Each structure stands twice: as C-alpha cells, then as structure tokens.
C-alpha cells in the first residue's frame, strides 16, 4: 500500500521559444503512492499540465528539454524513446482529459474505441467484447451492450467522460492522470464522476494524479495536495492539513477568492495581476509575491531557498514570506493564523 508508484525528483521542463530555452517547470518533486490521490492545484499557466505531459512523454522532444528524474514503479521515464514510452502510455499510465468530446473519435463506436486501446498493446487479447462490457459496467454505465454500439455524439457529457475513464482503465494502469476531468460537467454529474474516481482508487489500487483548479474538487477527492505557481510547488500537504492550516500566501489567497468560502456580504479577495510570462520567471525568488501589492520590494525580490521548508508532518512551504504575511484588511474567516 505504501509503495511509491510515481516518484519525480527535480523535474524541470524548458521549451525552446524563438531559439531560446525558457523554463516552464522548475525542479518539481512529487510522489504518489498506490491508492493515493495527489491533487495539483493552480491557475492556468502554473505548469500543472506540463508536468502531466512530461509523465506521459507527450512533449515534442526537439522543442523541449526535460531534466531530472521521473520513475514509474522504479523505471526511469525521462530519456525514453517514443517507442519505449509506448510500453507505458495507455498501459501503465492511463489518462483522462478535460474535454471528452474532442478526445474521442467521432466516427468510431464506443466499443471499438475501447477495444482499440486494448488491442494496440496486446494483439491477442482474449474475449475482447466481454472485457469492453466489463469496463463499461465498472464505470457505472447501466446498459453497456447498447452504449458499446453508440457513437460519441449520442452520449451526454457525463457518459462520454465515463467512457474516457473506461479507456484509461482498459489496461489496468498503475497510475491514472486526470487532467481537469470534471471542469466541463454539471455539478451533479461532477459529483458522480468524482465519486467514481474515488471508487476506482479504492478498487484498483492505482495512484491518481488529479489536476484541477477547483478547490472544492480537491477537498472532496484528494489525499495529498500540491499547490503550484509559475512552474514551482509553493506548498504541499495532506488535504486536511492544507485546508485547516494553509501557509503560503498563494494558498491563502486562493481560499479567500473562492465564493463558496466567503459569505455573500464580504468582498472576495481578488489576486491582482497575472501569472508571469515564461521569460520573466526568475525561480530564485518567490514569484507569487509580485502579485501582492502591499509588500515591499525587499520582500518581493528576496532570494529564497531552493528547497521547500518542512513546517509540519508532510507539510512543505516555499520561501519565507508566509511567516509574516498578513492580508491588509480583515482577518481571514476561519483561517486566521
């Protein structure tokens, strides 16, 4: 139960833009155990999906430089050729994308798409039809025989996402990467899909990397949370600890910006500015501090330790600013330090 299925150490990713290498991820270290859900949270542009794509080996090798180490069940993934990666992609690592409509082939029946995912890796897979139907039943589809004969456009968004999950599960992966799996879905369907992901986690004993920007989804599903900003992890903790005792200014700002966490009379905390462009990311500093208008330049520009500081049991924070950080106005409701 406690073995690490995914272990990444100091993973950096740079993209070649106009001939120059620009860093999108800077020394990320995360690990996922079997049966654990690790949530990556952050704004768009924070590097969540870049990390997922490095694990799946989906970056264009000529335009991207990936350094560090990512091991899956002890096997190093960085530096593998396309063909070597094929042994992992879709077999030992399954992926669920945000938009099921654009990731399913509109011209292929659901049953065929699922069996394709199996046959690609094992040409002589026995009892293919039975396997497909079992997978569809596993993801809570009530009439698998009929659905297998249908095309993607005939299914609702929630059903399509279930089919995507069935495909991700088709080869009994050790790790499932779910990139914003419920963002495009209605609340009731979102709840069903999250419950399904939880169920799979227990039943299949796979590790799950859940990428999301929705704090509610994190609180409902994750075991461990890594908060990302500008290509770095700024805080990492067990889910209860993170919500009960957030430290980094970014985590605290996000919690105060969430309408479900603030009563209607109060003003939401609006984080000013935007995530910096890749070329402006100086990773020797705590980049989020630029977006807090009342901090002095000394604090914002201070060079910080590369390592995250251990502040509790399995709780890590970047930089020093969190030690003195206060919001300007009122005290944080329910999160006062």
């Amino acid at each position, binding site marked *: 139960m406690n073995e690490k299925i995914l272990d990444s150490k100091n993973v950096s990713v740079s993209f070649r833009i106009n001939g120059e290498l620009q860093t999108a991820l800077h020394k990320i270290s995360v690990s996922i155990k079997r049966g654990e859900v690790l949530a990556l949270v952050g*704004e*768009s542009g924070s590097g969540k999906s870049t990390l997922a794509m490095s694990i799946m080996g989906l970056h264009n090798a000529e335009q991207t430089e990936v350094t560090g180490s990512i091991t899956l069940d002890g096997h190093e993934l960085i530096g593998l050729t396309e063909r070597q990666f094929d042994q992992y992609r879709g077999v030992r690592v399954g992926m669920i994308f945000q938009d099921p409509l654009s990731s399913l082939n509109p011209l292929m029946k659901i049953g065929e798409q699922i069996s394709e995912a199996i046959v690609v890796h094992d040409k002589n897979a026995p009892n293919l039809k039975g396997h497909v139907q079992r997978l569809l039943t596993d993801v809570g589809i009530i009439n698998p025989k009929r659905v297998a004969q249908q095309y993607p456009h005939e299914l609702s*968004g929630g059903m399509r996402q279930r089919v995507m999950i069935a495909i991700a599960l088709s080869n009994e992966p050790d790790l499932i990467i779910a990139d914003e799996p419920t963002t495009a879905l*209605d*609340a*009731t*369907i*979102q*709840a069903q899909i*999250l*419950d399904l992901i*939880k169920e799979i986690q227990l039943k299949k004993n796979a590790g799950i990397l859940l990428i999301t*920007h*929705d*704090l*509610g*989804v994190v*609180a*409902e599903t994750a075991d461990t949370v890594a908060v990302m900003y500008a290509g770095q992890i700024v805080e990492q903790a067990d*889910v*209860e600890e993170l*919500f*009960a005792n957030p430290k980094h200014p970014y985590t605290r*700002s*996000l*919690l105060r*910006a*969430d*309408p*479900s*966490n*603030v009563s*209607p009379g109060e*003003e*939401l*905390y*609006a*984080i*000013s500015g*935007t995530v910096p462009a890749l070329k402006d990311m100086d990773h020797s500093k705590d980049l989020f501090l630029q977006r807090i208008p009342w901090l002095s330049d000394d604090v914002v520009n201070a060079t910080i330790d590369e390592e995250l500081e251990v502040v509790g049991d399995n709780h890590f924070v970047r930089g020093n600013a969190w030690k003195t950080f206060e919001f300007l106005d009122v005290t944080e409701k329910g999160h006062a330090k």
Partner: protein
Amino acid sequence: MSELVKIENLKVYYPIKSGFFDRVTDNVKAVDDVSLTIETGKTYGLVGESGSGKTTIGKVLVGLENPTSGKISFEGQVVTTIKQKKAINYNKDVQMIFQDSQSSLNPRKTIGDIISEPLRSFGVPGKIGAGYDGQRSFEQDKINARVLELLDIVGLPARTVTQYPFQFSGGQRQRIGVARALATNPKLIVADEPVSALDLSVQAQVLNFMKKIQRDYNISFLFISHDLGVVRYMTDNIAIMHNGRFVEIGTTEDIFDNAKHIFTKRLLSAIPSLDVKKREENRAERKRVEREFVQYKNDYYQQIGSYMRAYDLESISETHFVAIKKGEN
C-alpha cells in the same frame, strides 16, 4: 422594491419537422411556461444543468430570440417580441455579458471600436447610473470620452483603445465585455455564465466588480450559472430550472437553507464542500438524496414518455414556491 422586468408564462418551443412536407410533428419545449420578476438593483439567479433552458430565457429577455408565447414587460411596457423591443430602443437598457469572451469580441476590431459600437447605436447618456432616461449624445468626442471612462471603470489602461482582443488575457477580455455591456447605461444586464471560463483569482475580480457596479449604478442582473457557490454569493433570488420548467423559486436563503424540491436537493448535495472532514458524510448524503430522487420523483414530476415534466409551482411562503403535486405538503 420596484419591479423592473416581469416575465409571465413564457414559452419557447422549437419545432421538430419531419415527413415529406416537413410538417411540424412535435416541439422541443426549451422553456415551458415560466414566470419571474426581476427587481431594480437586485440579482436574479437562474440555475440548472446544461440544456435546462437557462440561456434561452436570457436570449429572449435580451431580444436575441422571439418567444412562442407569454408576455414580457419592462418598466410596465410590453416588450415580448423583438419588434416591440426595437421600437423602444430596448437594448440601451438591457445588455448582455457572454460566457466566452473570446468568441463574443470581434477579433478584427480594436477594443475602442468594440466598446463604442453600442454608443454609436444608442448614444452617450448624459448622466451615468441606471435609470437616467434623458438626452443622449452622438458626438464623436463624447463617445471617445465615454469609452475611456468605461475602460477606467473596469480597470484597464487608456492605451487599450487601440489594441485587439487577442492581446488580452481571459479575465481582461471578460472585463472588456462588461465595459461594452455598461456603455449605454443599462438597467438590466443578462450575465450568461460570466465567470465559468475564468480562474479563481480572475473570477473574484469579475464578481467583485459586478457587485460594485450594481452598488454604484443600481443595475439589475439576471445571473445565469450552474455554479451554485457563485450563485449563492451573487444573487438575491433564485430560480432552479429543470427540463425547461422552474422547479423551485425563492430567495437565496429559501433555496440554500430550506430547499424543498427533490431536484434542488440533488443539486445542493452535489456542491463540493471545502470542509475536508465532512467529505465522507457528503458522499453518503449524495447517495441518500439520489435514492430519494428515484423513489419520490413521481411526487415532483409528471412522467410523459421519457420526459419528466415538473408540476406547477405551489406557494409555501410569500417568497418561496415549489413544483409539487397538488395535495402534497
């Protein structure tokens, strides 16, 4: 509180044509007999799943579509059809903010052109603030000045005027959409999922900003959303929609603290909670509500083929109405 908009028995049907002569054989009832009232300076929330008809109501209200039947009145004037709306220059008073800021801003026009377009159509109001009905000016100087003023209100620099939509981030583009909606001094803004494409940090900026312009200019909103967390934060009154019908309407407190309809309960139980300790409890609650939904749906819906039609609304308090079979309760 004064009524700004009153929608009575609104129906929007889309015909299904089939057969040799393309005869109308059936209708899709996108909106099926709904009534609502929006008060001046208040926010009315329209909540439901995709396909429930929320956006259709918004489109009819703004005048992008004609209703099949029903009556809409705006400050006492009947403005049911697009023709009636045009006749009174209705759209200077009623504007819209769209979900997708990318596709609702013309990529070939500068921001200055985009924001000044409604001003060229309806003129620059002499005074800012909802409710001003006096002289409007069409002078180019006035229009330019108003554009700059609007950009300032939404917190964008003056140089924005000559830039194009692609040069902005999603949150900035959404604020440009808000500036355009504000340009003519509207009394009502229909906001269709205005923040669902935005990050949390930017979402907070836009929501705060909408609340601010409501306070400053006494604007009413029809706020269409499927995100109940946002709806609770933003609205005064809420209608819950399902299959083109209202299943429950009430004040925000009525809905969130005292939900009666099984569909509302189901929606509420699906909201992810930030309270990690309660998540097992929430999951059990969701399962329970789901069972209840299956068990009792006949008390709340008429089954017509595979279609579930909600009953008519019954009053349970002065503000709170629920669609339930007569004789229950």
